[in-house]
């Protein structure tokens, strides 16, 4: 009975949402604000990747809020799962093949993550993606070695320093320019690694912050045995 009611309700919701959405023309060229961003990305921010330019430069304050939400989630998760006794992970040691290969792959994954967030203004990618890749490498080590531990103090220091770097760059824009997070550094030649002013600096800070946060989050979630 409940299933029937649920399906009926969902059918009504789906029909009317689709009815509204079909009035939006599909596949036509971007107008309005999207067109403006595309046409003036290189001129106004110096970045080649316009998604990065929007996330870090045009909506930089929004990204600061987003980083804060992620930080709050990691802190809240730690507070919910806190226990007085130290807890351990329940996993057994993995086989020799997995252990040996993950030892080789782990630095390479960390390198790929660093590459992704350093080149955020040139190629697809950025701080959030690079940080997530680094955390995936740490997860590989977590599931293959029972004794692999992360240093929580170092992680929280990295996280706080990265967050402070973001805010400091923002205030530098306020002091030397006219607004918070204004791009005060020279743009350089678009398409080169050292270009786009403050965008790579902010994305490197975000990459470190997200990597440290997700690593701490995984560590908290995997420790279940008292």
């Amino acid at each position, binding site marked *: 009975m*409940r*299933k029937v009611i*649920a*399906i009926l*309700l*969902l059918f009504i*919701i*789906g029909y009317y*949402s*689709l009815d509204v*959405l*079909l009035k*939006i023309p*599909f*596949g*036509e*060229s*971007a107008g309005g*604000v*999207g*067109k403006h*961003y*595309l*046409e003036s*990305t*290189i001129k106004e921010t110096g970045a*080649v*990747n*316009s*998604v990065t330019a*929007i*996330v870090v430069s045009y*909506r930089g304050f*929004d*990204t600061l809020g*987003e980083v804060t*939400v*992620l930080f*709050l*989630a*990691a802190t*809240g*998760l730690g507070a*919910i*799962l806190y226990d007085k006794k130290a807890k351990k992970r329940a996993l057994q040691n993995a086989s020799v093949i997995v252990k040996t290969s993950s030892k080789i792959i782990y630095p390479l994954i960390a390198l790929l993550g660093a590459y992704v967030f350093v080149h955020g203004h*040139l*190629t*697809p990618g*950025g701080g*959030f993606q690079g940080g997530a890749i680094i955390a995936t490498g740490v997860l590989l080590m977590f599931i293959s070695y029972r004794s692999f531990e992360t240093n929580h103090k170092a992680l929280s220091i990295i996280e706080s320093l990265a967050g402070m770097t973001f805010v400091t760059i923002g205030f530098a824009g306020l002091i030397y320019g006219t607004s918070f997070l204004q791009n005060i550094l020279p743009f350089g030649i*678009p*398409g080169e690694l050292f270009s786009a002013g403050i965008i790579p600096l902010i994305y490197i800070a975000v990459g470190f912050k*997200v990597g440290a946060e997700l690593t701490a*989050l995984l560590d*908290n*979630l995997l420790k*279940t045995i008292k």
Partner: protein
Amino acid sequence: MIYYATSILLILIGMYAVLVKKNLIKIVIGLSIVDNGIHLLLIAIGYVKDGTAPIFSKPGLQASQMVDPVPQALVLTAIVIGLAVTAVALSLIIRLYDHHKTLNINKIRKLKW
């Protein structure tokens, strides 16, 4: 058209899981499916026919050939928030399981609808 229909279908599948399933883990999986459906919908709305990614990687690329970058930037934000929501929900489920020794919402009183 097919893109809109598929993403709406994904959203509905996720909402069905949230409404009908009894297992808390399955409800969180349903929430993630709703999330992914919404991301797909936003990306589909920003699509331009024969458009490339909004990155000026080659000198000859024109702005008119590219897809809309605004939905992509919003989805980048939404993915991160979705991850945070899923992580907090899973930690709450771990605590509920510690307390009640079950994941079935019918057996946990005060959670019935």
